[in-house]
C-alpha cells in the first residue's frame, strides 16, 4: 500500500536522524554556475573533496548568451561565474559540459535527453525546476547552495520527507491544449502554494497520454504549485524515450533495468495524503495576467474582479495588476504584445519547436514583435535543423538562437525592457523576472506562436 514516492524515497534513506530529518542518498547531482560557486568554496574551506564525483554533472546555462557563444562572454561578471564552474569541475574531477560543448544546454533539458536522469533515481540540483526530471519517474527536487555543498561532500542531504499528493487528470485534452496549459490550469486551481509540503505524482489518462516532452513540461512546473517535486510513474512512453540515450543502460543491462523500472508504480491501494482529480475536457489554452504563475485564466476568459479575491489577498492582487498595467474584469484577447519568448526548461524541447512552427508555417511574424526562439540544448538545436524546422521558421521571419536559459530569468543579455509585454513559454511571471519592469504573460508554445504572428494575444485554436 505504498506510493511510488514512498518506495523511491525509502529506498534511498541512509538513516533516519533521531528527532529530525532523513539522511537521503542522492544518485545524481547537477550543478549550474549560479548556485554552486559558494558550495565549492565551502569544500575548499573545509579542505575536503567530493565523495562521489562520478555522480555529479556540471554545465553552465543561466548566464550563457544566446548569440556568439564561440566568443568569450562580454559581461565580465557572467564570464567569471561561468569560468568558475569550469575551474571547480576541473579541480574536483567532475564531468563538465561547457559552453559550445555539443552536450551543453539547460541542465533540465540535457539531463533527460542524455539519459543521465533515469527512473527510480534521486536527483537534485540547486535549482527549483529540478522537478522536471520527475518526468522519467525519478524523485527530483531543487535545493539550496548549502545543500549542494552537502551532496558534493557526502552524496547525501538531510531532508524531512514531504507528504504525498496525487493529481489525476482524466479524459482527453482538447485540440490546441498542451501540457503547459494543463500545468497553468492546475496552478490556477490549486494556487502557487497548493502543493507546498507535498511531493506530487501526476496520474490519470490525460497524463498517461502525454509525450515525454509534455511530461517534462508538466513536472517542471510542480514547484510553481509549491510542490517539492512532481513525477510521472515510468511506462512504455518513458522506456521508448530513454532507450539508446547516451548514458542510459545498454544491451542486457537495459533489459534488466526496464524489468526493474516496471515495478516503479504506486500500489493500487496506496494512500496519498491528498488527492485531487480534474477533467481534461475543462482545460482550455491558458494565459497568465498577474505576477505569480497561479494567476492564470483561459485565453478567452476575463480577469477576476476584487469580488472574486479574498480580502487578505487584495493588496497583493492590486499590486500585481498595477504592475502589469491591467484592470480587473477585463479580457486579454486582442491585447498587443511586444515580445515573444519560446524556450526555457519548461518549453525548450523539440516538440515545443514543432508546435511553434506548426502555427507560424505559411504566416509571417507580426511587425513590431521581437521574437526570441531559444532551444533548450544543442541537441534540440541540431534536431530543429535535421527536421527542417529552421527553414520553416526562417521563412516566417524568425531566427533560432543558441541554447541557454535566456530570457526566462534574464541573467544573460536577453532582457525584456521595462513596461513591455512578453508572451513567454517560461515558468515565472514574477515582477522583474525577465528584466526590471518586464511584464510576462505565461503561455504554451502554440499561444506564443499565435501572438508572434498576429502581434496580439490570440486564441491559438483559431490558427490551427
Amino acid at each position, binding site marked *: 500500500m505504498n506510493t511510488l514516492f514512498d518506495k523511491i524515497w525509502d529506498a534511498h534513506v541512509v538513516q533516519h*536522524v533521531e528527532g529530525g530529518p532523513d539522511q537521503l542518498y542522492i544518485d545524481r547531482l547537477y550543478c549550474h554556475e549560479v548556485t554552486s*560557486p559558494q558550495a565549492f568554496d565551502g569544500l575548499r574551506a573545509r579542505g575536503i573533496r567530493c565523495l562521489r564525483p562520478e555522480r555529479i554533472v556540471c554545465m553552465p546555462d543561466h548566464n550563457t548568451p544566446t548569440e556568439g557563444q564561440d566568443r568569450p562572454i562580454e559581461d565580465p561578471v557572467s564570464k567569471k561565474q561561468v569560468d568558475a564552474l569550469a575551474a571547480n569541475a576541473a579541480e574536483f574531477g567532475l564531468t563538465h559540459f561547457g559552453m559550445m560543448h555539443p552536450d551543453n544546454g539547460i541542465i533540465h533539458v540535457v539531463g533527460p535527453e542524455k539519459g543521465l536522469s533515469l527512473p527510480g533515481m534521486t536527483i537534485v540540483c540547486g535549482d527549483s525546476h529540478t522537478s522536471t526530471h520527475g518526468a522519467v519517474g525519478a524523485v527530483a527536487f531543487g535545493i539550496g547552495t548549502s545543500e549542494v555543498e552537502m551532496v558534493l561532500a557526502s552524496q547525501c542531504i*538531510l531532508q524531512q520527507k514531504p507528504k504525498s499528493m496525487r493529481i489525476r487528470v482524466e479524459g482527453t485534452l482538447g485540440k490546441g491544449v498542451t501540457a503547459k496549459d494543463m500545468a497553468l490550469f492546475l496552478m490556477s486551481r490549486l494556487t502557487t502554494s497548493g502543493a507546498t509540503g507535498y511531493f506530487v505524482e501526476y496520474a490519470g489518462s490525460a497524463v498517461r497520454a502525454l509525450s515525454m516532452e509534455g511530461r517534462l513540461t508538466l513536472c517542471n512546473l510542480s514547484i510553481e504549485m*509549491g510542490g517539492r517535486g512532481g513525477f510521472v510513474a515510468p511506462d512504455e512512453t518513458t522506456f521508448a524515450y530513454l532507450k539508446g540515450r547516451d548514458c542510459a543502460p545498454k544491451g542486457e543491462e537495459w533489459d534488466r533495468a526496464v524489468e526493474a523500472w516496471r515495478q516503479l508504480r504506486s500500489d493500487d491501494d496506496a494512500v496519498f495524503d491528498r488527492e485531487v482529480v480534474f477533467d481534461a475536457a475543462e482545460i482550455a489554452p491558458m494565459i497568465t495576467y498577474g505576477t*505569480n504563475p497561479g494567476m492564470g485564466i483561459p485565453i478567452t476568459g476575463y480577469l477576476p474582479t476584487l469580488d472574486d479575491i479574498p480580502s487578505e489577498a487584495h*493588496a497583493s492582487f492590486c499590486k500585481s495588476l498595477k504592475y502589469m498595467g491591467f484592470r480587473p474584469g477585463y479580457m486579454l484577447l486582442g491585447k498587443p504584445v511586444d515580445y515573444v519568448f519560446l524556450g526555457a526548461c519548461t518549453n525548450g524541447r523539440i516538440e515545443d519547436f514543432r508546435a511553434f512552427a506548426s502555427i507560424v508555417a505559411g504566416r509571417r511574424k507580426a511587425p513590431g514583435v521581437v521574437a526570441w526562439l531559444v532551444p533548450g540544448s544543442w541537441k534540440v538545436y541540431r534536431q530543429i535543423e535535421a527536421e527542417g524546422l529552421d527553414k520553416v521558421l526562417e521563412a516566417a521571419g524568425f531566427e533560432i538562437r543558441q541554447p541557454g536559459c535566456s530570457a526566462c530569468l534574464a541573467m544573460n543579455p536577453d532582457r525584456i525592457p521595462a513596461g513591455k509585454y512578453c508572451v513567454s513559454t517560461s515558468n*515565472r511571471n514574477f515582477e522583474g523576472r525577465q528584466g526590471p519592469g518586464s511584464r510576462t504573460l505565461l503561455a504554451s508554445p502554440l499561444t506564443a506562436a499565435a501572438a508572434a504572428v498576429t502581434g496580439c494575444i490570440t486564441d491559438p485554436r483559431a490558427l490551427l
Partner: protein
Amino acid sequence: MKQKFDIIESTCVPLPLENVDTDQIIPARFLKATTRDERFFGENLFRDWRYDPDGTPVPGFVLNDPRYGGEILVAGRNFGSGSSREHAAWAIAGYGFKVVISSFFADIHKNNELNNFVLPVVVTPEFLDELFASIDADPATKVRVDVPNQTVTNLATGRSESFELNAYKKYCLMNALDDIDYLLLQKDRIEAYEKR
C-alpha cells in the same frame, strides 16, 4: 552565518504581502556573485521594491521607513515561493534579520533560511493578523522568540503560540552546528548504504 540561538526579543519589520517570491527578495541580476558575501546580498534585499532604477530609495517601502526596524521580519503567507536561490536567505541574514515570521513558508526557502541560521517561525493566520495590527498601531511592538521553549509571543497583546522545530534542527541552532558538520561524520553509514 553560524550563530547560537536562544531567546530573541526585538521590534519587527512588517511586510503584509502574500506570495513574496525569492525573485523579489533578491533579483536574479544579483546572483552573479561567486562568493557568499552576506553584506552585499543584504544591501540588495528587496532591491526593486526598495530602490528606484536610479538607486533612490522608494519612499513608503518598509525598509526605508525609519519607524520600523529590528531583527524580525514579519511577512504574509507563502513567503519565499519560487526560485531555490539561497541568495535570498543570505540577503535576509545579511540585512540583519534572525527570524522571519509568517503563516506559511515555501519549502525550499524555509530550508535555506534554517541552513543560514535564520529561523522561520510559522504562526497561525490569527496570530499573524493580530501581529500586523499591533505593529501598525505601534511600530515599537516587540516580539519574543524563545527557541529553547519553541514559543513566540506578541508582547503588545501577550498572545503566545508554540512553533514547530524538530529536535535535530533545534540542537543545531542552539549549538551553531550545520548539516555538513553532521554529514561528514556519517561516512561509514554512507558506505554501508552503497554496499546494500
